[in-house]
């Protein structure tokens, strides 16, 4: 890195020539065009809409989530960053889908799009559908939840007297006790309400309605815990809130008990201390586990975990992965697991999606991706991993860089770095080719039989 060296100087000059800066005029033009587009999308986000407007159907009812043709862009003054550029995949119920891909390829933006947490006004979902099966509380005409009642053997609702504040049965004007149906209680002693399943297109939902889904229906473990923990509130404060919001009828005492229980579950020693601590007083891995506890506290049906174990040692990582699997078993949740740790993917995932530069380039079952990676990028990824056994002087890494997301080429995005390039690769962007009932790849090497 010393610039004294002649040769390096040349290299530096070469990089200097390559770059192109925009003139002030160009930037203003881009900004104007962006502003118009952003205003339109923001308006749609903030509109009021009846649920029927975004209720839809799943293509396959075994899925819990279907993402189709998702495009999420950032409108910056340098141009439009197409961070997610046409992504299609499904998450079947009660399964784990792993996502791998190069740093910056759009994994987090995909998951933030599903949560509808893209930072506006510059970050927007521009196109695509995100169909999500919601199991929400059923409401009566007045908008109240409908309790589930205990029934006797004959199927009749068991009745019990209504009590007043002092625990004395209330009576009507004839002196008869007033009766009501006995509500079923769950293992925490909290009343159960009737639920119903509907499918929403999240991409079209007004942002306000999303609040109902986050936490209980879907929850996210963020890649950088400090971005989502509030530095001025204690961990306990922030954890309690999840229970208070998502468990109907939860009291403060219940919330605290549950928070401590959750901290225990994620392997935190002395949960009482951590409960009373502020985020900056915790280690990186403790913050990450607090985030996980927060995401799991609502017992969501879909957990999106963005690099959930990067700050954890392998023993605690194993414990956390078990915890995810427990929840999956207990309430049939599904997991979208983003990680660069191929070992974690191998252990956890049923299906694997490989992303590159905002698109999916290969997907299949975990075993297909590991034993028979087909896309040259996936193959390169497999080769780069230092293993406990390897001892080469230099690690293999895929040479070159991704193209600039502002000016994507119209041929294969991996072409400049690919060692198996063929003539066809300079042509159109390769389409998805099915190579087995579950294995798909987007690469011209496998295109012959199709189209």
């Amino acid at each position, binding site marked *: *890195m010393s610039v004294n060296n002649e040769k390096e100087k040349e290299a530096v000059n070469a990089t200097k020539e390559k770059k192109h800066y925009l003139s002030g005029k160009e930037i203003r033009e881009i900004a104007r065009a962006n502003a118009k587009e952003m205003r339109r999308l923001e308006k749609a986000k903030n509109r009021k809409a009846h649920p029927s407007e975004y209720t839809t159907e799943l293509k396959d009812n075994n899925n819990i989530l279907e993402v189709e043709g998702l495009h999420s862009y950032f409108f910056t003054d340098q141009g439009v960053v197409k961070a997610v550029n046409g992504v299609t995949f499904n998450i079947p119920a009660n399964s784990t889908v792993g996502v791998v891909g190069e740093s910056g390829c759009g994994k987090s933006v995909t998951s933030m799009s599903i949560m509808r947490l893209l930072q506006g006004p510059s970050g927007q979902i521009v196109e695509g559908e995100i169909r999500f099966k919601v199991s929400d509380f059923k409401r009566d005409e007045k908008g109240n939840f409908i309790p589930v009642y205990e029934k006797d053997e004959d199927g009749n609702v068991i009745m019990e007297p209504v009590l007043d504040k002092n625990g004395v049965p209330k009576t009507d004007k004839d002196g008869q006790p007033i009766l009501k149906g006995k509500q079923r209680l769950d293992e925490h002693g909290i009343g159960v309400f009737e639920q119903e399943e509907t499918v929403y297109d999240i991409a079209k939902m007004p942002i306000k309605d999303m609040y109902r889904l986050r936490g209980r229906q879907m929850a996210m473990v963020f890649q950088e815990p400090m971005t989502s923990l509030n530095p001025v509130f204690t961990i306990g404060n922030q954890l309690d809130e999840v229970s208070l919001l998502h468990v109907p009828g939860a009291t403060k005492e219940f919330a605290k008990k549950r928070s401590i229980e959750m901290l225990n579950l994620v392997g935190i020693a002395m949960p009482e201390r951590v409960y009373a601590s502020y985020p900056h007083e915790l280690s990186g891995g*403790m913050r990450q586990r607090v985030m996980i506890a927060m995401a799991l506290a609502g017992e969501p049906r879909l957990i999106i975990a963005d690099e959930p174990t990067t700050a954890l040692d392998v023993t605690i990582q194993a414990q956390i992965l078990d915890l995810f699997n427990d929840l999956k078993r207990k309430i049939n949740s599904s997991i979208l697991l983003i990680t660069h740790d191929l070992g974690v993917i191998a252990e956890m995932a049923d299906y694997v999606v490989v992303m590159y530069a905002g698109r999916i380039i290969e997907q299949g079952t975990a075993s297909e991706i590991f034993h028979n990676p087909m896309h040259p990028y996936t193959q390169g990824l497999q080769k780069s991993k230092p293993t406990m056994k390897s001892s080469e002087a230099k690690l293999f890494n895929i040479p070159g860089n991704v193209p600039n997301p502002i000016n994507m080429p119209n041929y294969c995005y991996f072409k400049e770095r690919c060692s198996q390039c063929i003539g066809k690769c300079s042509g159109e962007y390769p389409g998805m080719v099915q190579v087995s009932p579950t294995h798909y790849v987007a690469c011209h090497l496998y295109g012959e039989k199709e189209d």
Partner: protein
Amino acid sequence: MENQEKELNVAETQEENAFAGYDDIAEKEREEQARAAQIEADKQLPPDPEAILEVRHLKKHFVLKKTLMGKPLSTLKAVDDVSFKIKPGETLGIVGESGCGKTTMGRAILKLHQPTAGQIFFEGQDIAGYTPKQMRALRTKMQIVFQDPYSSLPPRSTVGDILAEPVRVHNIVPPEKVKEYVLDIMEQCGLRDYYYERYPHEFSGGQRQRICIARALAVAPKFVVCDEPVSALDVSIQAQIINLLKKIQQERQLTYLFISHDLSVVKYISDKIGVMYLGSMVEFGPKDKIFDNPLHPYTNALFSAVPNPNPDEKVERILLKGDIPSPANPPMGCKFHTRCPKAMEVCKHITPEYREMEAGHFVACHCYSEEYSGKKGE
């Protein structure tokens, strides 16, 4: 009420101990005196001239509760008596459970936390007592890549400014060359030139991590604490960064303290390895010795938990059972005894000595002391 419970517990354990033939209170006193004497004796020694960094009996305690007068009521011993040396051009890998004090140790060495006690010799100077002003002169020589990239980058500066500012201030290259120099480092870290004008929030997690690495390397340091520097990177870029770190190390005799949970990465990059548990170093030695012949039961358990990147093979793991103790209230004797599969009676009462088993390979465990390893049956 809490206090009462604690007292009860103490009484109970005391009874048990009397039964087992140990007097914990006397033992504790004896240990403390011996340790204080050791620290005093080591203070007199001159720093090792061959080491670029020598840490002796480093402690960092956080005060959790204070009395009204400001006296500490309960403290958390995040780093409790750690000693080691690193030679120039070497990489010391630090591994250990989440929350065991790795980050705190790294920060204390750079004086980003004022150490509670101990000596830190950097290039022969004890910097433990340096004032912030004195430290500023050392800042270009000692750098850190923070574990949490997002909160360590100023949100309102562009990447170009973040990287160029320290280069300019410390006159690393002539002013007219600064931009070229910064673009070159960015390129080496896999950051594209068009990122120069962008703000930190406009990046992905892995891109931010690389900005932090570029910032640390830009001022041509001698010693860098890398706290989980590649945890957010995919394996290919991870390989690129590790190759870069190694290349620069060879060119400039750079020394790294490399903290990571990824054991394959640690194994690849390190010359020496230190294993920490609950604020203490439990095993330390040359990489090959640690990986081929791990001695401490904790090291063994740690290595067995590495996930296997083959979905069809399920591996056998040593699962650690028992309560994970808190650094605010560490167990007596060996701190690992609550979870150790090999724990003996003596482990509950007497702190194992940190001793050299073979050249440069240290371990703190009673299994390797002739005096105690025979007592197992008791």
